[in-house]
């Protein structure tokens, strides 16, 4: 492991990679502050720029954008009660009341230190857990992988949209259907191409991400007459007050941070869960473990109530890298985008990644520490200045998002058809978003489609066409049982709500 850490440090601490962490964190913080534009859009927009880098640098940039966006989202939660990303909703419960009491600076400082501590601690957990998990995951067979993918897709559908499980499952199926277009990986037989040569290689992952996130979000903003920059304009005008944290507050944070970081990390590791659930769970748990006197302060500006979700959401970000790096299966929509980008670089994440490409594996982990320090520097003294950059009117912001989307496809294929297809998918996605059809399950399904078919093929061929492989191995059966539990739980909740 020491050797790996040194390899990671050598790769991460180059001028170019440190610059990428800074750029990623800065850009991520800006996007994270804009309500409506999440980390997936930010990462999608970065993809064309990563074409010019090696895989490690590209992924370091994207990882920086990811935790930068979560970090930035907390600022608009605290100052405006308008969370930039879903993972920072719980932050507003106590952050916003604190800001209303004239302690906005203090709330931002607590959030920044908690995020820093959460991110750093979880990077340490990742450091120790990822190599061991990689070794364990070497024992995984095709049926286990297939079951794990089913679990991931069901979980993301269950958690991504409250009360919209069926809609999310429809998006999962649509994502898998889109992934099935093009040549079959084994027999080279073309499927669903309708004699169109442009579809022979299938639909590009970058195209689907750009269309369903960047482009469709831009169109949704125009269609709904939203102005994501209006929140940022208010941030830049808000009086922040002191950013000093006193001894009593620090003592409270010392107790909250370790437990919340552990919850955040473990939830992040679970496929489909992620920062939103982690932050809510940490908030709920913190409320249960504090004294009755402190419990009374929850929702009115509690230090524990602010520190817990902020620690957990950043810890969950690092945790979500575990299934991607060790199993090659992304645990969230955001890591699915990163996995797609890695596949584009010709790198196959999975149990053997840390043996075949140790520089990628370890440099991502090492860059997280650097990223956390940079985010702390960015968030504490620079937030009012960063917020001023955001006052760019939407009349400029939207065309620039569309421009980045089209450029991403253009430099990839030099093909008109891909641009038309992207616009077509973006229009459909915009319409579906209006009716609350979630997009992250579609992306995760699209990324996993090929792998899922491959593992199902191997499993069925090995079992001579029998579906017994689903319960032959204990591990496969356990994973499938968890999936069934999630589905049953959702059906139960739906019936309970109706009654």
């Amino acid at each position, binding site marked *: 492991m020491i050797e790996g850490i040194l390899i990671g440090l050598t790769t991460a601490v180059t001028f170019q990679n440190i610059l990428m962490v800074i750029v990623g964190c800065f850009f991520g913080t800006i996007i994270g502050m804009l309500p409506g534009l999440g980390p997936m859009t930010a990462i999608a927009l970065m993809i064309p*720029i990563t074409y010019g880098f090696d895989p490690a640098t590209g992924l370091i940039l994207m990882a920086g954008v990811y935790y930068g966006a979560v970090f930035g989202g907390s600022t608009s939660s605290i100052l405006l009660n308008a969370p930039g990303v879903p993972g920072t909703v719980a932050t507003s419960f106590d952050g916003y009341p604190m800001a209303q009491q004239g302690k906005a600076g203090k709330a931002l400082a607590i959030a920044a230190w908690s995020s820093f501590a959460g991110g750093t601690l979880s990077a340490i957990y990742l450091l120790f857990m990822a190599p061991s998990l990689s070794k364990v995951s070497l024992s995984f067979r095709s049926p286990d992988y297939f079951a794990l993918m089913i679990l991931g897709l069901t979980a993301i559908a269950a958690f991504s949209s409250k009360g919209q499980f069926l809609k999310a499952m429809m998006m999962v199926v649509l994502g898998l259907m889109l992934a099935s277009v093009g040549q079959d990986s084994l027999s080279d037989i073309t499927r669903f191409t309708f004699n169109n040569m442009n579809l022979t290689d299938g639909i590009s992952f970058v195209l689907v991400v750009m269309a369903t996130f960047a482009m469709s979000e831009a169109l949704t903003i125009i269609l*709904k007459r939203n102005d994501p920059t209006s929140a940022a304009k208010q941030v830049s005008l808000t009086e922040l007050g002191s950013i000093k944290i006193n001894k009593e507050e620090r003592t409270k944070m010392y107790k909250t941070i370790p437990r919340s970081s552990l919850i955040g990390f473990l939830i992040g590791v679970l496929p489909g869960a992620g920062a939103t659930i982690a932050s809510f769970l940490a908030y709920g748990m913190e409320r249960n473990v504090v004294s009755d006197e402190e419990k009374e302060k929850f929702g009115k500006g509690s230090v524990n109530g602010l520190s817990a979700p902020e620690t957990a959401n950043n810890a969950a970000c690092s945790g979500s890298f575990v299934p991607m790096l060790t199993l090659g299966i992304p645990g969230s929509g955001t890591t699915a985008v990163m996995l797609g980008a890695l596949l584009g670089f010709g790198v196959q994440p999975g149990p053997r990644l840390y043996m075949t490409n140790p520089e990628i594996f370890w440099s991502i982990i090492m860059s997280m520490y650097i990223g956390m320090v940079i985010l702390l520097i960015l968030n504490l003294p620079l937030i009012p200045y960063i917020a001023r950059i955001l006052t760019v009117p939407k009349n400029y912001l*939207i065309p620039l998002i569309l*421009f980045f989307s*089209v450029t991403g496809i*253009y*430099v990839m294929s030099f093909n008109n058809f891909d641009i038309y297809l992207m616009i077509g998918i973006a229009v459909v996605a915009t319409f579906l978003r209006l009716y609350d059809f979630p997009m992250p399950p579609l992306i995760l399904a699209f990324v996993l489609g090929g792998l899922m078919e491959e593992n199902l093929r191997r499993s069925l061929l090995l079992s001579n066409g029998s579906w017994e492989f689903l319960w032959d191995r204990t591990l496969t059966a356990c994973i499938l049982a968890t999936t069934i539990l999630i589905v049953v739980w959702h059906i139960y909740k739906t019936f309970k709500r*109706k009654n």
Partner: protein
Amino acid sequence: MNINTTKIISLLFFIFSAFYLYTAYQIQVFAFDENAPFNARTFPIYLGYAGLFFSGLKLILPDPNTIKVEHKSLEYKKTGTLILIAIIYGATILKVGYFLTTSLFLFASYYFLGERRWILMFLLSFPFVAAFMYLLHGILDIYLRDPFLQSIGVMG
């Protein structure tokens, strides 16, 4: 009569899944693969049935979270214009080249979205695209096809 749009979308998805399933059954596989436990049409067939199952459930089950969209408050005109500009951009980018079409696309988009600060519009289109091209092509060594700039000798 009040029509639930989510149900209409589910119905459309149901029809789409049926078409997908029909097409999946039409996939030509090799003769020796026809009766294999798994061939090129197996997975798409499962997907077709899954699509029918989930959209069918959505159709028949009551919808407790009905989404109501106020269509009158939506900005269809500007969105439509922006999509049209993007289509024209896509149609011309290969023939005319990246620099000119992208700059014009940005300029036109700013204009149709209501911007009238001409100098800012210009700065955020032509010089901005030139700088971005330099970043991609000059610094990051990403190839950008541009017949227009090549014809006037700016690009090699």
